[in-house]
């Protein structure tokens, strides 16, 4: 759930109002958007990607009130982390593109499934051996 918009960081660009796919925000009269429909937040973190000022924090629980103060949110050390991990806060050097490891997704997924299958077969065999 969206927990905080940090007024001192927010530039009032309203990018989050536009980018939120589920219409959680309203444009605020003082320039800082309002969290107007918390019940529609799906905890997708997309607003953090689209906020160029890193002025938002989404708490990880997708149900219930986030109940986190601005100070507590900042103290998590996670504000802006996701946008940085995606590389949306900077251009990538040509020799190290942001998505250079993305091809590994399929092979790693299959490897995980194979680990589970081997382990399960071993467990079943041990069980049958008594």
């Amino acid at each position, binding site marked *: 759930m969206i927990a905080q918009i940090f007024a001192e960081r927010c530039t009032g660009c309203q990018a989050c*109002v*536009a*980018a*939120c*796919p*589920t*219409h959680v925000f309203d444009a605020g009269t003082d320039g800082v958007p309002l969290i107007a429909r918390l019940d*529609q937040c*799906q*905890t*997708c*973190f*997309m607003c953090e*990607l*689209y906020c160029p000022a890193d002025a938002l924090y*989404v*708490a*990880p*629980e*997708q*149900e219930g009130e986030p109940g986190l103060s601005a100070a507590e949110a900042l103290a*998590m050390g*996670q504000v802006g*982390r*996701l946008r940085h*991990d*995606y590389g*949306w806060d900077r251009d*990538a050097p040509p020799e190290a*593109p*942001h*998505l*250079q*490891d*993305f*091809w*590994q*997704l*399929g092979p*790693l*997924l*299959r*490897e*995980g*499934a*194979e*680990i*589970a*299958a081997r*382990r*399960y077969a071993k467990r079943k065999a041990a069980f049958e051996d008594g």
Partner: protein
Amino acid sequence: MSEAAPITRSADVLIIGGGMAACWAAIMAAQAGVEVLLVDKGFVGTSGVTATGGPNHWWVAPEPGRRETAIEERYARSFGLAERDWMARIIDETWRALPQLAGYYPFAGDGKGGTFYSGVRGPEYMRALRRFAQDAGVTILDHHPSLELLLHADGAVAGAAGYARLKQQTWTVRAGAVVIATGGCAFRSGLIGSHGNSGDGLLMAAEAGAVLSGMEFSVSYSLSPAWNSTRTLPYFAARFFDTEGRELDVPPPMSGEAAHLRALARALETGPVLADLSDAPDALKRGLRRIQPASLAPFERKRIDLFRDRFPVRIFGEGTVRGTGGLQIVGDGCETSVANLYAAGDSATRELVAGATSGGGAQNAAWALTSGRIAGAAAAAHARGAGRRRDAPVKAAGTAGLRPASTARLPDAREGLPVIQAATIGYDAALWRSGDKLVRHRDAVEAIWRTIADHGHAEGGGAVALREHAAMAACARWILAAALTRDESRGMHMRIDRPGTDPAQQSRLLVAGLDRVWTRPERGAAQEIAA
């Protein structure tokens, strides 16, 4: 209700939806040289289940025999309901289309010295499709949820109407052809990205007279931490434990998905299930942040080490998103059974390529891409010939939630949602279907539908929310009717009272109707299900 003047526009082709299928449809229609308007409930770039994911597309090189082999492998798993020609089409179209995104998407290496095209990360993919569509000349209207279709006197679709929620204005668009690409229906399960996937387009199309197919094939779940649905990459090697520390007997995910899901569902019904990822591949532990950073955030923000600590999980219902059901496709151009109306992506039945199974991620993304491109091109060609007929009188087709059959009031639609969820994505109802349970759930959902259809009425943003609940109720009714009619088990449709697959029922099953729901085999006589 809004005081502002309504927005009225016209276009040759109107695309409803804002995910990958909608964007590919818009791009193809615009490239055909017609005027294209795309309206999305949310924001094109973050809307839908692709934006939060990382779709891998079915990717088979045009080398001798390779595609034929891939098609035969998948056909053998379709329970006889897929079509080889459609599979060949989506392989070929995907192969040719994805590299066209090169100016918009930062494709990188494939680890073998080549370019990795088949898998794309969601936020970057949808950002690229938005820019590609805009450069092709598409006009995008974000936050313009559609409420209903408009019909000509002859029954052909004439456009759509809705509500611009940031401007608080109603809107009307007249068009020569309309493409429904609003995604599937996940019944607000919490599945990441699916909050807006409430089946709106299926309801709108059905009100215009469209028919659906394969709605019984809607039993699909994905595993995630209990507090936040993520993509599933990290969890494939998981071991599972109860809170006493006893390891649970959960067959591995690739041993047959049903056994894996059923074991998890049964355990979740008795208590919390904890996952242990200490066995995950080392390269995943090192590289997850660079591959899929959003999967780490829910853990780091709770100060949980996902590869060391055990954490609670649950399985999130995917409804017709990864299930296959959707609007029936009646032609090679992704035409629906209604004139001027096309369907693409998860809004359309994916049985044509996946049959009675989910199809898995790669086939699904290739279907969304291809059906979008085919529908967009066909809609453009049709609109160019038929014209916009923008001065002809039209009728609004919307019913439940817009034009109540009896006295109007604002029902608390949210009260019905748990009943709809129990009937469609409830573990017992979905993974262990039986005639008795289906009848019981059908009657419960029927009462909710009746309240919305007879009395439901709201204005502005309230109408959007009410229509979402009407759409979820409608989808639930079609799913239950189809599951009841399909008197056998086939693929992801599993009936404990009919465990076998009946060769006589190897046909796609159509379902439609609002006041009264009916079903019939794609070739055969109508069989009405009493409301």
